[in-house]
């Protein structure tokens, strides 16, 4: 059994760390499924192969978290049908069904990866030890996905800025609203279906985290991602201010 994470020594920290791994594994599996669906929307065979490769990358992340959790004896709950993860997946599939590659790319590689990179980094820094190292290394790999999408989306913006910004605005509200509800101090749409018992947010302090800072950092990274794509700041400010909190 892994003992490198000192925060597993009390029942409270054991529960929180178990929930953190549960969320990470569920999120990675959603990402894997999304990339697999994304491959369906792509005509270019090279891009199609790349999407499958990304799906495999998410699978390996899920596997890495799962392996660590088993070794550490954590109580993991994986639930792709939980309220928020299922809703995000449904949004993704709706765009995949329309073969809207840009919308799918934005959901998976900008919205979800911004949250993954930021939250994994925060969790990694807080947990330290082997668990922290695992979260930080996966955050680094997810960052590559974020960077990869930026170039494609910038090119799309160059072609028709107005149409692109309108589309991204629509996707933002359809998908970020769910993540904003999910990451609010209290779950705004009820229990996530992944955490054991009650919501872990109130217990994050046991491992040196707090939900407001994690949410703030994630929104900050998302805002920077929008900047890098070329979304005007006056737009992204409004988009963020209009999210549930």
């Amino acid at each position, binding site marked *: 059994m892994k003992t490198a994470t000192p925060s597993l020594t009390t029942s409270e920290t054991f529960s929180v760390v178990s929930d953190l791994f549960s969320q990470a594994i569920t999120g990675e599996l959603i990402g894997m499924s999304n990339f697999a669906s994304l491959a369906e929307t792509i005509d270019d065979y090279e891009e199609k192969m790349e999407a499958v490769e990304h799906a495999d990358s998410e699978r390996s992340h899920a596997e890495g978290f799962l392996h660590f959790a088993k070794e550490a004896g954590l109580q993991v709950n994986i639930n792709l049908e939980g309220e928020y993860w299922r809703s995000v997946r449904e949004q993704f599939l709706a765009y995949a069904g329309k073969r809207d590659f840009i919308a799918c790319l934005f959901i998976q590689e900008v919205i979800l990866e911004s949250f993954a990179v930021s939250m994994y980094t925060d969790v990694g820094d807080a947990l330290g030890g082997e668990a922290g190292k695992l979260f930080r290394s996966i955050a680094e790999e997810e960052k590559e996905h974020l960077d990869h999408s930026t170039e494609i989306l*910038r090119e799309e*913006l*160059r072609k028709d*800025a*107005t149409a692109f*910004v309108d589309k991204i605005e629509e996707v933002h509200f359809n998908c970020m609203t769910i993540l904003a509800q999910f990451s609010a*101090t209290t779950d705004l749409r009820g229990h996530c279906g992944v955490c054991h018992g009650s919501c872990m947010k109130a217990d994050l302090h046991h491992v040196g985290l707090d939900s*407001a800072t994690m*949410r*703030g*950092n994630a*929104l*900050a990274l998302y*805002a*920077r991602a929008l*900047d*890098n794509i*070329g979304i*005007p*700041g*006056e737009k*992204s*400010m*409004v988009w*963020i*201010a*209009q999210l*549930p*909190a």
Partner: protein
Amino acid sequence: MDRPASRLDFAVIGHQDSWANIHTFVNRIRTPEQGTLSVEKVKAIFPFIPARDLFRVTVTSRTGDTIKGVYIDTFIEPDKLGVTNLRTNLRKVEDAIAFAKKLEAPIVALGGFTSIFLEGELSPYASSNTRFTTGNTLTSAFIVKGVEQAAVENQLDLRSASVLIIGATGDIGRACVGYFQSRVNNLLLCARNKRRLERLAGEVKAGGGRCTSAIELSTLLPRADVIICVASSSNLALAGVKPEAIICDAGYPKNLFRDAADRPGFLFHGGMGQVEGGYRFEPDYTDSFYQYPAPDIIHGCILEAMVLAFEKRFENYSSGRGNITVEKVEEIYRLSLKHGIALAPFFNDNGLCPTRPKVSSI
């Protein structure tokens, strides 16, 4: 960053001075269906937002010229401007400077707290065609011209008056000292850094001026006929002040208690100008950010960037600390008048003061 934006003539980097303004701004953006957010919820989001442009600004000169600019907010928390948050705040200013450079603004004003970057010689100039100014010279001009105008309207002869400057060793404070040292009977100088204060008092005396200096404000307040507040302090009390004293609060955030305007005498918010040709924001957030009792009022520091843009003088006009000369004060004031940017009507927290300054012209 490739942006679908038109060419900019100037940019302004700033921060908000109250959570009340920020709360209004955020909820103004939200639709009735999205509901309003409490101040606590706004506080949980706002400080995390990276620097970004919030709105475009179009300004028209008396000459008929029009310039376009942008306002970039640093998202510095208004109640965390002290030294304990210095590192975080400097990083936010750095982010905003990088943002302004990406937008290729030729001249950028660093307003309010953010001017610390230029005053502290933390050069943001490297590898960029963008030029920066604190805007402190035009702010100083509006302060000193405002005090002179207020003295006329209140029948006070400045040549026989004692003028107290709170925050005397700061960049704007020093500019006020330089301007008034040969124009008033006596300068009363107050600042927190004793060594700097004594050095400044020595310079005034060496130049033939009369002055008294103290780090304790209470010893100077009862002697002042005019008080200019340009410190990085807030909630200063006015105990012992002469009832007829003229007070110019030009701090950002304001230096004095909010109820200071209720006292007898003449108190106005200094360092402000008014644009004759008007300015327009897009989106129009004037009901959240620039709520003044008269139209087209704006801070002198912001107006300095606009004046320099009208003049196409893309240079680091106000930079460092203690470099504002009387000649530069007069020059930027003359240029601002040329473009129809004049001293704002006197106002304070209670609204417009009963009298208004006579608008100068060249």
